[in-house]
């Protein structure tokens, strides 16, 4: 079931959505940023990917397009997973938001914004969610030192 659904998906999506690759049971697409929202809309409306699982990023500091933003989707009908990978540059880490398509996007994108500083265009609530108001920097970027401390309240001496 899942395998045939993914086969169909691969055949129909590949020309528009770029290269596809089956990795450990998940069909992974690499997309241009502009393709993201149209692709996700097709995934949701035509292929039944009804759960937006999460979004995160992978930081490749040496690459020209530094951040690889990774979205995961699941289809309860086909019992299949899809991963979408989009590259954005450090100078302009902006990507269209999925808030118009999935309710979970609002929260998930806040976390990704916290951790990597990816700006999701259209998500108007990118307040810190796991971090706190006033935190400087994005801790999951590779150039954020692990030992750096930013106490909100001064330590007791």
């Amino acid at each position, binding site marked *: 079931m*899942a395998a045939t659904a993914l086969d169909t998906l691969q055949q129909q999506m590949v020309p528009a959505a770029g290269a596809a690759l089956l*990795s*450990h*049971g*998940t069909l992974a697409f690499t997309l241009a940023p502009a393709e993201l929202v149209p692709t996700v809309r097709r995934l949701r409306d035509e292929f039944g990917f*009804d*759960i*937006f*699982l*999460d979004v*995160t990023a*992978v*930081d490749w500091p040496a690459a020209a397009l530094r951040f690889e933003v*990774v979205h*995961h989707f*699941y289809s*309860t009908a086909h*019992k299949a*997973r899809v*991963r979408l990978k989009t590259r954005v540059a450090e100078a302009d880490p902006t990507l269209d938001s999925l808030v118009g398509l*999935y*309710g*979970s996007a*609002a*929260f*998930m994108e806040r*976390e990704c914004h916290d*951790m990597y500083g990816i700006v999701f265009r259209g998500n108007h*609530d990118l*307040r*810190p*969610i*796991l*971090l*706190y*108001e*006033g935190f400087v920097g994005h*801790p*999951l970027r*590779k150039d*954020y030192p*692990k030992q750096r401390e930013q106490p*909100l*309240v001064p330590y007791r001496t």
Partner: protein
Amino acid sequence: MDTVFPNPVRPLFGTPLRDDSVIVNIGPSHPATHGTVQIIAELDGEKVLRTDVHCGYLHRGFEKECEDHTWHNLIPYVDRLNYVSALVNDFAYCDGVERLMGIEITPRCRYLRTLLSEYSRVVDHLTCLAAGLMEMGAMTAFLYLVMVRDFMYEHLAALTGARVTYSYGRIGGLARDLPAGWLVRLEEILVQYEEFVARVHALVDRNRIFIDRLRDVGVITTADALSFGCTGPILRSTGVPRDLRKDMPYLAYAELDFDIPVGIKGDNYDRYFVRMREMDESVYMIRQLAQMLPEGPINVDDRRCTFPDKALVYSEIESLINHFKLVMDGPGVPPGEIYCAHEAPNGELGFYMVSTGGGTPYKVHVRSPSFAHIGAASRMLDGGQLADIVPTFGSINMIGGECDR
């Protein structure tokens, strides 16, 4: 001395919608919520008009820390994600790393992991239900459930050496095999479980007080649950039989006979009942697995990840070097990426891991069910009563460890 500390959150709304409504702040450390979570609510009398839910008070940089340790060293960390059912986290994480390495675990390990996952599910649901019922005043039900849970904790301590955070999974196997008599004691505990859960059913199921507090409270529709990424008992309580154990069978679930309990309308009563019935299914599975459990080794014979026998480490140079390399460099995981999800008691627990080769992960991301559920919490709380925040929040079963990472 008057010190004004900075506010860690910026509320979504600062001014009331109406003249007669008030904005109150609940938490982050409120006696009625278990878990550090902050709910900023606008109230009209006792009616909740809108809420802004904040998590993150237990954030400890789990994902950052993962990038600085070997794959083996992360096992105690993943234990502390959902610390009520730590074994499920262990096994989901190890399964992901094993798939990256192309390792197939031994049959005994596969069945044991399945058995212990289901045992953890029972422990997790017992904890959630006990706390939820206690918050509504059911002290007896709480004590019954927590007593059985403590039998299980002690029983797991006999196996793993720890009550809550076990560090029992290993990449390619398990820390140790079952001690003598463990399965005999398991059956004794399951009999106790049946007796006390039957009493809780008798106390709660048709009790007017609980029905009034739970029925049609904290309702979420199937469409909303899917859109907000809800999985596990919350999605199933809306009537969707969506369970990874059936949909994408992993470990030994394909060989087991079990049902997926679902609710009718996604309210607190359904979530209570789905959890109660899921525990029964888990016990049914545990009994099947105890019968099916084959003899044999629990660890794969693979020098890339399995530690050599201690006697050999002390007596031959190859094993000593092997041990040293595994501790210092970590297991050799080939480059690649994987999203590996298990059906945790709260829902889909996914590990997205990226390896660039070598003993340390390049990235580990956790897709935690609690985080998605907290994102959907406003949907369940808005329009309800102030007093219903407590049971609704209890039935969401937010676990700070995995929500905030």
